[in-house]
């Protein structure tokens, strides 16, 4: 049965609920036990673990990143006018330079987020950061599957083993051209296929997350939340 309830009855009901809420608050205050000594120690331990983790991750990134940048830089300098090697080398150089910078910037932006902002402002900032992360991940994967295949093999054989793959046989040249073409063609195909796979369920596997990222579902979800925040903020009384 549906009732037409007045504003007065709503106010009365909520005045009663507020009273009950205050009572519950007092009971909660008595029920929740805060162990200051243990909490202080836990927080200090967390801080030390965080410092160690950040230091380790940064060191690992530098160890992996700097040699790659140097090696591709040396390779490109040696093959500056030889476009067959310079172009794949340049693509890889751009990748290994740009991706860590994007990753570092995103991490720095996340760490700089001020959680004491008003809810709508903070959630908008996080949704925007999420959109950037999803976009970066999607294109890192789609472009990566092209350049970390044939271009990388060409550069690896020439740079490390001294073998010119272009000069081995016509068949190999044909194979490489076809593989690059297929890799480029796979970009829209991957997006199309990913959009056809069912949306993710809760506790999705890494594969489903990858699919969602490529299909743009995560991006769509972030955009929808931004619209929701805008509507929540701007609704006229």
């Amino acid at each position, binding site marked *: *049965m*549906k*009732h*037409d*309830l*007045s*504003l*007065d*009855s*709503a*106010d009365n*009901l*909520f005045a*009663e*609920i*507020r009273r*009950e*809420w205050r009572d*519950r*608050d007092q009971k*909660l*205050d*008595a*029920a*929740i*036990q*805060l*162990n*200051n*000594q*243990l*909490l*202080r*120690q*836990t*927080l*200090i331990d*967390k801080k030390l*673990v965080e410092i160690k983790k950040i230091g380790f991750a940064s060191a690992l990134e530098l160890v992996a990143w700097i040699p790659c940048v140097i090696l591709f830089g040396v390779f490109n300098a040696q093959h500056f006018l030889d476009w067959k090697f310079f172009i794949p080398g340049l693509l890889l150089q751009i990748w290994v330079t740009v991706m860590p910078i994007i990753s570092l910037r995103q991490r720095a932006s996340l760490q700089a987020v*001020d*959680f*004491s*902002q*008003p*809810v*709508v*402002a*903070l*959630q908008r900032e*996080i949704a925007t950061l999420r959109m950037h992360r999803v976009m970066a991940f999607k294109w890192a994967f789609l472009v990566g599957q092209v350049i970390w295949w044939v271009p990388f093999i060409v550069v690896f054989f020439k740079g490390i083993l001294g073998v010119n793959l272009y000069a081995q046989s016509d068949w190999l040249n044909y194979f490489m051209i076809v593989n690059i073409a297929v890799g480029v063609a796979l970009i829209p195909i991957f997006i199309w296929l990913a959009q056809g796979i069912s949306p*993710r369920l*809760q*506790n*999705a596997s890494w594969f489903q997350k990858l699919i969602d990222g490529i299909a743009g579902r995560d991006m769509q979800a972030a955009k929808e939340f931004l619209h*929701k*925040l805008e509507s*929540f*903020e701007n*609704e006229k*009384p």
Partner: protein
Amino acid sequence: MVHDLNMAHAMSDTTISDDAFLRALAPHKTILYKVAYTYCRNSDDRSDLIQEMVIQLWRSFARYDDQAGVKFSTWMYRIAMNVAITQYRSQTRQIRDTVPLEEFGLNIAAADALDDTASDNMRALMTLIDGMDELNRALVLLFLDGYDAAEIADVVGISASNVSTRMTRIKQKLTAQFAVAGQIKPPTEQTHEA
């Protein structure tokens, strides 16, 4: 030697700051539970969420300035709600390296047990809150805690008139749902009985 002195100063500053943080947190510890309970019904996830809230509050404490006129409870609500909504929106568990809450320094077992003695109104209210989106939950929680429209606006980041409009709608909707659920009687019947 200089390094050791700097470390000693740093640790001393940290201890002072930690003590101030814990002193400020203690009178408002129920906010942690209420926000966590509003956004998270699974007790394990709630325990993780409370830890994440405390850590974020503690990280942000250096930036808190009570001279700026922001009450600690308001500042705490902002952070706790932002952490809760962020976790609520992420579909996977973001928190790792958590410990049982008792080992963390908080014991909420007795608070959880209060559920068993909750009134019908409280149970119905919680069920209704579960059906709301993450932003409206924030409004309701602050309203229940006695915040007025201007204070809610300050925490949530929308205008006070917007808060008032939304709260009127929410109250009407919840009242109707309460009536359907049999928690209250319609005004005509109440008048008749009176």
